[in-house]
């Protein structure tokens, strides 16, 4: 009889069931967390990289606690882009953004499903309307899930200075489903914050 079998035979049946349940719960929870991390890493590694300039809405209110609230020109969808399709009360839609000759990105269309075909200078992002917004009446404020940049405790001042003095942009990875994730931040074309995968 092995040591393992010895231990198992000395454990009462009720405790064995409980042990199995504990193992199942721990595995389930750790697997869930692992899946979230792996999914995010895959998106950051394989997603198409786009650079979006950051709009500091109000520099004095830029920092809330330990994260920077980011705003982008594509966060507001103009009325012209929302009138194409009737989309009542959708929780999520796709915003087609198009790169301009000056390398900036503009929101050009909104659709309930991801467009099947797009030009090479276009990509589509998953978006949720900001609170109380309605797709059918533009302009619409949207969130892409990249509106918060978390910074180490007490270091927000550095970023605030950069945002005031230089042109700050977010380097964003976009995957085939249109999900976006922040890879880092750049100022004047130079990467100032690079996010390691691990």
């Amino acid at each position: 009889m092995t040591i393992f079998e010895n231990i198992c035979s000395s454990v009462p049946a009720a405790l064995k069931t409980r042990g199995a349940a504990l193992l199942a719960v721990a595995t389930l929870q750790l697997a869930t967390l692992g899946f979230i991390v792996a999914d995010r890493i895959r998106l950051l590694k394989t997603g198409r990289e786009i650079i979006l300039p950051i709009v500091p809405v109000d520099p004095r209110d830029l920092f809330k606690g330990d994260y920077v609230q980011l705003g982008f020109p594509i966060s507001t969808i103009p009325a012209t882009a929302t009138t194409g399709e009737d989309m009542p009360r959708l929780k999520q839609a796709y915003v087609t953004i198009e790169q301009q000759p000056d390398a900036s990105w503009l929101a050009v269309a909104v659709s309930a499903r991801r467009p099947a075909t797009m030009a090479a200078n276009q990509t589509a992002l998953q978006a949720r309307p900001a609170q109380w917004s309605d797709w059918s009446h533009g302009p619409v404020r949207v969130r892409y899930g990249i509106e918060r940049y978390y910074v180490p405790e007490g270091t927000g001042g550095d970023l605030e200075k950069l945002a005031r003095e230089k042109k700050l942009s977010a380097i964003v990875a976009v995957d085939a489903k249109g999900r976006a994730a922040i890879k880092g931040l750049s100022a004047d074309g130079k990467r100032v914050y690079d996010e390691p995968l691990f």
Partner: protein
Amino acid sequence: MIITQARLQADLKRWQSEGWVSDAGATAILRDLAQRNRSPGLYGALAVLGAVLLGVAAMSFVAAHWDSLSKLSRLALLGGGIGASYAAAFELFRRRLDPFAHSAVLAGIALFGASIMLIAQMYHMDGNPPDAVWLWSLGALAAGVLLRSNPTLAASVVLICVWSGMTVEQDSKLIHWGFLPMWGAAAAGVANTRWRAGKHLLALALSGWLIVSCLQIERETGRYLLVAIGLAMAVAAALRADVIDRWRPISATLLAYGMVLAYIGLFVIQFVDRAWSGSAREPHLWLWGSTTLTLLIAAMAAGWRTGNGRVLWLAYAGFSLEIIALYVAKIGSLLGTSAFFFLMGVLVIALATLAYRMRTETVGQREVMS
């Protein structure tokens, strides 16, 4: 009615001296009471609170020092913490220290939630905030149901409520049906452990959902629906108590919940909507006020008849609140308010006289019969 141990002991002494309870009977009752009180007491509650504090401490600690640890180290720390919590729970279950084992499970759940939030921070994920809480509640629910852990089931009910609240907060017209299957799963877990306090927690959660859902329905329809549901519950509990109690002894609780739900609906109609839309909105306040006071008196009568102290005190509280709110809101003018209260006062005194006469007649009949 809740009877404290000290009160029961005092009553037992009195009953013994009156000769209603024998000495042997009193000893047996006290022995039974002592056995029942072997359930985890203060130390169990403290262990649970300790676990909650440890979870919050872990979350704050990792968040505050996050740049001095690599992402991988933080992930390993969090994952290791979850694993260690459940391993500790197993060891504590093995040593038959169940309250401490349940606390360890709760600490694991707290770390699971902290992990979700911290992964979101590490990768700057700013998705739909309720989704993170939903995932957390799902983890808590799985642990609570599989491990038959009451503190964890309670935590999952709280998380489900937080998730539902956050979801509804995003949309003023949404009725959050997604709450019900999650609540049902938690209810199945509580039914499995036969936890009495858990059943009350579930009833409170469902009542909260019902109130919010009804208030989400546009215009007055939702308010009327809430009043109708509450009244239906209270009337069924008052008139068909025997039928309900044959199934489950819940008629007393049903009466209390029904009364509170109906009163909340009536309160919103009379005072909250009025405050939001201006005083001209509800011209029939005297009618609503007198109906509410009459229903509360009916609830008091039902409470008296069935010896339901909880309903009685809730009805007293509702009655007091209603009077204060009517006085502040005013029925037309102060003179009108005065006339209203005068009339209601005369009616209630008349009712008291009628009740006194009925009681005297009943006592008289009993004396004749004996």
